[in-house]
């Protein structure tokens, strides 16, 4: 082969290799979908916003992480399988359980999720939720303001109220309504929010001055 021929081949090699190396240096091998986080590892510890919807969401997501960790799948895989009975059944089979077992794992996961949030100090104090709880109960805001924050927070730790609420969740009802956002919101609100409110109400009732006890039922 002539010197010109060898030079042409060398130029082709340099151009091809050079462009490939440049693209790889600019992330060519990493332009792939983001991988799901390990559900067994704690996520970024940011404080949960002090409103009931955010607290409910944090409990559900943390709970899904715990359940996914238990099942050996990603949180996203679990979440995507839940609305579809066939995929849910397959996921349960893969995890060596059945649908009832899956529901129990999710409920246990929700309890573990509350533990995680408490352990990481992410939950707001109940006093921060009190104005919203007052609204739910129909208590005038000026009366809610009479209750000292410290008293409420000492008597009702947020995590305890949430654990009580989680026990009230009907996971089967949640699973059958996953394709209906409005119904799902209603169920979660009834269970988590109303459950937490009931717990708060029971716990603070005895601590309130006599005339106020009647206001919380």
């Amino acid at each position, binding site marked *: 082969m*002539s010197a010109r021929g060898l030079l042409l*081949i060398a130029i082709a090699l340099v151009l091809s290799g050079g462009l490939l190396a440049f*693209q790889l240096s600019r992330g060519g091998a990493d332009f792939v979908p983001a*991988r799901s986080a390990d559900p067994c590892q704690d996520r970024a510890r940011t404080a949960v916003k002090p409103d009931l919807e955010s607290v409910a969401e944090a409990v559900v997501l943390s709970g899904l992480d715990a359940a996914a960790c238990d099942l050996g799948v990603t949180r996203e895989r679990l979440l995507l399988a839940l609305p579809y009975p066939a995929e849910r059944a397959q996921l349960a089979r893969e995890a060596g359980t059945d649908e009832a077992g899956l529901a129990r794992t999710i409920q246990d996961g929700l309890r573990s999720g509350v533990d995680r949030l408490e352990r990481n100090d992410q939950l707001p104090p109940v006093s921060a939720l009190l104005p919203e709880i007052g609204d739910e109960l129909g208590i005038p805001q000026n009366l809610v303001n009479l209750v000292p924050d410290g008293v409420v927070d000492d008597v009702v730790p947020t995590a305890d109220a949430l654990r009580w609420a989680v026990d009230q969740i009907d996971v089967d009802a949640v699973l059958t309504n996953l394709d209906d956002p409005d119904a799902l919101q209603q169920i979660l609100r009834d269970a988590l929010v109303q459950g937490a409110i009931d717990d708060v109400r029971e716990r603070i009732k005895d601590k309130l001055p006599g005339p106020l006890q009647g206001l919380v039922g």
Partner: protein
Amino acid sequence: MTRAPRAAVALLSLAVGIVLADSAIVTLALPSILREFDAEVSQVAWVLTGFNLVLAVAAVPAAKICTRGAAGSAGAVGLVAFAAASAGCALAGSLEILIASRVAQAIGGALVIASCLELLVAVSRDERQGVARWAAAGVAGAAVGPVIGGLMTEAISWQSIFFVQVPLVLLAFPVSLSLRSRVERQDGPSDRPDIPSNLALALLSAALTAALFLLVLLLVEGWRRSPALAAVTVTAMPVAAVIAGPLAMRLRAGTRAEAIAGAILVGGGLACLGFLPDANPAWTVPAQILIGFGLGLTVDALTQSALRDRVPRALHGGWTIAARHGGIVVGLLILTPIFTADLRDARVPAQEAIAAQVIDSGLPASSKLKLAEGLGDQLDAEQGQVPDLSRAFETARLPAAQAAQAAALEVRLDDQLERAATRAFRDAFLAGALLALLAIIPAVFLREKGGQV
């Protein structure tokens, strides 16, 4: 050359270009055809595969007809058959009729290609020049076909690609008839086909299928860019191929070196398409330039090498067409299952990435639930295709206060889809690169001018 032969050369070259452009002209129209006939990618791929397979099979028998001095008549019949079949493609009411018309197009096309080699040599009165014109017309047609097809699909419709071919290809009909008496019969023993040249052509054609077919699908279906933008983007390849031709002639490095360097450039360019750093079409241009240079260096040189000092010329021309289009079919048959399987496998990681983005967005839980419902519907509705997630955001009707967050989320979701689509094409591009690099093996055994190996 007088005016009459110049016009004859132009019209015959145009006919060759149109027929060979047809091997890939519908590449950019495939997504439109896919939607119109509600078909799957693997079914629509037969619009390409059917044409190339039949052209590969019919090329040598068509060439044999032309060696018997019947090139003029065979060309005229082929032009009419090709034009009629093109009209059939344009009027096809189902995918089956479209594929059957494409098969008929290929049979007519094989007669056109084989006869035009003889007619171009006859009208050029110089075998080397005639062969060079025939090869150049083929390279030009194959290279610009997808661009023209894409622009016509975007501007008018995919059917227009076939309608416009009817009068254009028939322009060569009177030329073909008038040259009947000028074509000599090529009796006598036939040389054996040039295996290294034809094998290298087949492997490079298979790889170039990856370059055009996959790149266009990535741009239009994977990244959801318009066929017009895709057409403009893939122009880089033919432009580079056209520039490479004269450069190679000036360099005079020899057929073997040109073929090896070309295979390296095509393989390198395809590997680069497998490792794109983001979904900006501009990133595909440098890789396309490498592939275009490779195309310009190899196809012309290998075709001329396959025909050099071999008789009958038409028969060996037929072998090069069979090799090229057989290679395209092999490329489609190898690469289509790879990327369709990868596209299917990309679904779960993409869904999980989308779910993670929605969950971790700063939107309120109620908005996330509404979006999740719409996104789920979109993903279910567009089985086998990359979904358009913007509809989920439209139907969710989130409060105006959340518009900025929703818009940012939509951008992130589209990014995840583009990442998934790009990743899904990687293995097919790398398989194409491997096919191109395999062409180096037969290229090593090519004869240089004068007979040295």
